[in-house]
């Protein structure tokens, strides 16, 4: 029987807890540079991704990738909380302070979509396209950009798409970083200029949509889109022919595919932090009170200027009255 291992990890709200896991075997999912394996926690499978010290020493960038996973996973977890969408890989726990920093994801759905473009049955193509754009919409609305969206980053279970591997993820509004240029990168991402836009993943998503719709690797043979099907050009031309600021959003593309675009059940990402903030406020208030009590005595000893003026006036009046009384002899001193 496999050995029970105890580790400590934080949930998406940062709460630290102890996790008992059992090794579940090797795991070889494409598209990830982090070391990964399956583990079992309470009879449920999880994907365990980590950076062993040796790997980290050899390639320090792995720590950044793990950090990106944590930032994206916690953000998505906080935004979607109890209504977490199945289109996105879900972070269960993480610990970046441990000897071997790790992230723990709920087991991914389906199988890797690598090479699926030529194998998808026609009746599944639209399901895949819609699922992909929904996943991109969900991340974008949460302010997360995947950053390396390819078929390797997608899973497919025959009905649904799941987006995984957030190792290159960024958050909307951050400055874009110049790094390795992927074929799926948009011109802005390739140049590394400007700030991350919520439509940054749309370019890569549309490359995949094109591959799937054409049933082939459209990026190799078919860079020229002039012979693409009419509906595909109508859908993708606004993406590929415009700068990021004028590109359609995933919701627009979903409408172009005649798919429903339901309101997102996104919660306030800060809501999960409310208990902590309240506690912080309570502590702050208590500190203020303590400080106030400590400074009360010196305040009482001090003189109110207004009272001083009044006292002066009264004294002057009394002095004047006494002086007049003495002068006119009303008081006989």
């Amino acid at each position, binding site marked *: 029987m496999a050995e029970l291992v105890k580790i400590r990890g934080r949930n998406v709200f940062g709460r630290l807890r102890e996790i008992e896991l059992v090794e579940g075997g090797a795991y070889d999912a494409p598209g990830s540079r982090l070391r990964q394996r399956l583990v079992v926690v309470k009879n449920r499978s999880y994907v365990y991704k980590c950076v062993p010290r040796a790997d980290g020493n050899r390639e320090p960038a792995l720590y950044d990738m793990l950090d990106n996973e944590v930032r994206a996973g916690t953000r998505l977890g906080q935004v979607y909380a109890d209504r977490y969408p199945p289109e996105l890989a879900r972070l269960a726990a993480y610990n970046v302070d441990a000897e071997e920093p790790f992230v723990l994801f709920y087991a991914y759905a389906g199988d890797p979509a690598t090479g699926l473009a030529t194998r998808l049955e026609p009746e599944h193509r639209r399901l895949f396209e819609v699922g992909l754009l929904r996943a991109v919409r969900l991340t974008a609305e949460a302010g997360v950009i995947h950053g390396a969206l390819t078929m390797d980053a997608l899973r497919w279970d025959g009905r649904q798409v799941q987006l995984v591997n957030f190792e290159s993820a960024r958050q909307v509004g951050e400055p874009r970083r110049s790094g390795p240029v992927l074929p799926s990168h948009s011109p802005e991402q390739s140049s590394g200029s400007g700030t991350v836009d919520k439509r940054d993943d749309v370019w890569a998503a549309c490359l995949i949509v094109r591959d799937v719709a054409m*049933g082939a690797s459209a990026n190799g*043979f*078919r860079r020229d889109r002039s012979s693409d*099907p009419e*509906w*595909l050009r109508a859908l993708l031309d606004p993406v590929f022919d415009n700068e990021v600021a004028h590109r359609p959003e995933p919701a627009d593309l979903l409408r172009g*595919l005649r798919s429903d675009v339901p309101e997102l059940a996104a919660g306030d990402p800060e809501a999960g932090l409310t208990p902590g903030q309240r506690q912080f406020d309570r502590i702050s208030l208590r500190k203020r009170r303590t400080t106030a009590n400590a400074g009360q005595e010196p305040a009482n000893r001090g003189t109110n200027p207004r009272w001083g003026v009044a006292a002066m006036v009264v004294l002057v009046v009394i002095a004047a009255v006494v002086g007049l009384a003495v002068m006119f002899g009303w008081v006989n001193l």
Partner: protein
Amino acid sequence: MSTNASEVEVLDLRVAPGDPPVGRFGRLVVLDDADSLVKHADTYLALVSGEMVSAVVCVAIGEADGDDRFGGAVLAIPHALRYATVLWVGDREGVRWVPDGSHPRPVEADEKAGDSLDDLIAALRVPHVFDRVVEMAEGHPGMSPAVRVAPIAPDPVELVDAGEAAVQALTAPEYGSAVNLGPRVRRLDSSNDHRGNVLAGRIHQTRDKAVRALNRVTELTAVLGTGPALLGRDRPTARLGEEVARAGQLAEEYRECLALLLDRVDGHLRVGTPPVAKVTELGVPTPRAARLGEIVPALREVVTERLARGTSLTTLAEEIRLAAATSEPQGCGTDLAEVRGRGPLSLGMPAFRRWPISRALLPVVAVCCALLTILLGPGSSGWVGGGLLAAGWFASGLLLLARRPGPAAEHGLATAWLPAVGTYGVAAVAGVAGGALAPDVVLSWVAVPELVGGLLAVGVSAVSAATVVLSWRAAVRAWSAGLRVADVRTAIEELTRRCEEAVGREWLPVRRHRAIAATAGSIAVAIEELSATLGATGGRVLAGEWPDPPDEVTPAVPELLRVVHADLADLCRAALAPAWQAAEGGRRLDRNVLAKHLVRRLGDYGDRVRRHGLLAAGTPGDRRRDALVARLWADSPLAAVALRTGPGTELVQLCRGDQVRYLSTAVSPGLLRFAPGRLRGVLERSHTDRALASDPGITWSDGGELVGALRLVPLRPESVHHMMGSR
């Protein structure tokens, strides 16, 4: 091993001298030791008497041993071979000799490298040569052959290399060479597509209503400038505004109906909802059924054509896959956006002139009235006549003001009274008064003769009437120019045409498009499977054994490469047959079915090439093979020498020098020259060797890869001893 009746089978009794072989048929070459012929008499008897054996050529090698050499005979032939052809090979290497009594010479050292017996057997394996040998040997108990052959076949190593190169070419992607087959494939079986008016039912009725309303507006506008428009009970001015508004509303309803139709069509084409019934209820026909029986052969023709052009399988799969994507229903999103963008359609009611008789004409009114009063005056006749003209001006002005069409109805008399009195009335009365009170000087000045005065009075009245009529017509023209009936009509026609095109292009053939896309998709998968299979196994198809493929492929002879490439492409095309059958039946093919087909065909092809040669594997008229033969002929001077062999040419006689004495010099030797029939066509097109093509002494064989000459010299009768039975 099974053999074809059109082939020549070789049976070597030297290595398999057992029981008489059974199941032999057709032409048979039997190799035997000369001293074993009598011993194998039963075997020969079985072969010669076999119903299915058409002819036997026995090649006796060596000399009969001492017991059989009666009276100095070199060959003892059993009775069973009395009517068979017996070729005696006294020595495998032979001597150079001309049967003219000259002395034989030993063969050159380089000629010994090859075994002339093998050349003889190779020549006898050509059916036409076999038959001619049988024919020439008839009546002779035994013949001594002399042979000279030159292969006209690709080098075996080059052949294997060509196989590797062809497989590489067929399975490697060819960037930039792919052809966009989409438009062509999408139009398969489209000759019966309906074009033109396809809108009916509800949508057609809506259009009719809109067009009729516009026509009504046009009709009313056309009569607006006429008298009945002003005076009749059913005046157009009374309802023109209402008709214009209604026409605009109906045009917009029609546009909305078109947008609804296109939205439903687009939805059904793209995502399958709404169902067909919800689309057809708007007035478009049900999509026509797909005719797989027409589509599949047409697509097959496209694939065959591309393969014949040398397209690699990988590229072809890519092309067909793209064609499948392009053939899928595309929806009509662009048309829908256009129809939506043209809305709302409306027909605006332009404002009619506030003053049909312009106020600038009021002085004319006054002058006319004054002139008539003066011309008909003085006295009561003057002001009565002027008064009548004034009344006419006023009434006309009042009528035109009242008949002006408004947004809902005409303005009416009630609203026209006051403006008419204030303008036309006042001007006319002022004119009459002015005329009646004109000074005597003026009256004496205008005192014209009575006839002229009368004519002038009529003229003034006519000018007044004409001014009224022209003013109204000018107002109507100005109003009509502002009415955009033509624009709305054009919009309706354009939208209708666009919608009809979309329905005709996407909706009616939707089932055909889906069938084409599904068929093309399945064929693309099938071609990919063949490509993978060929890449994995096909490279070794022409190798004798199945070695690991070489790391580097040496460049093959272009003509050879083209032949092998075309052959492999043909095999792939043939291996696709189950995929076409499945497509025609609307079935999906299990994976690896095609791979098995292809592997089997590749195996058969490899066997055939190794057995009969590459050139024999083709069909007559195969230009690639003709080109290869021309190349091989040009590269093989020995072949030309062999074909030009004459009766006095020195050849390698298959006997020793001391055995020449067994050959007859009394009978002329027979000379047989032979070459593949395919070479004849090449020679006919040659400038230098054309005479050979028409040489009647050459036997042209259907197959074979040998060019050569065979001379048969009869044995002396005393050199052959016939035995009546086996020992």
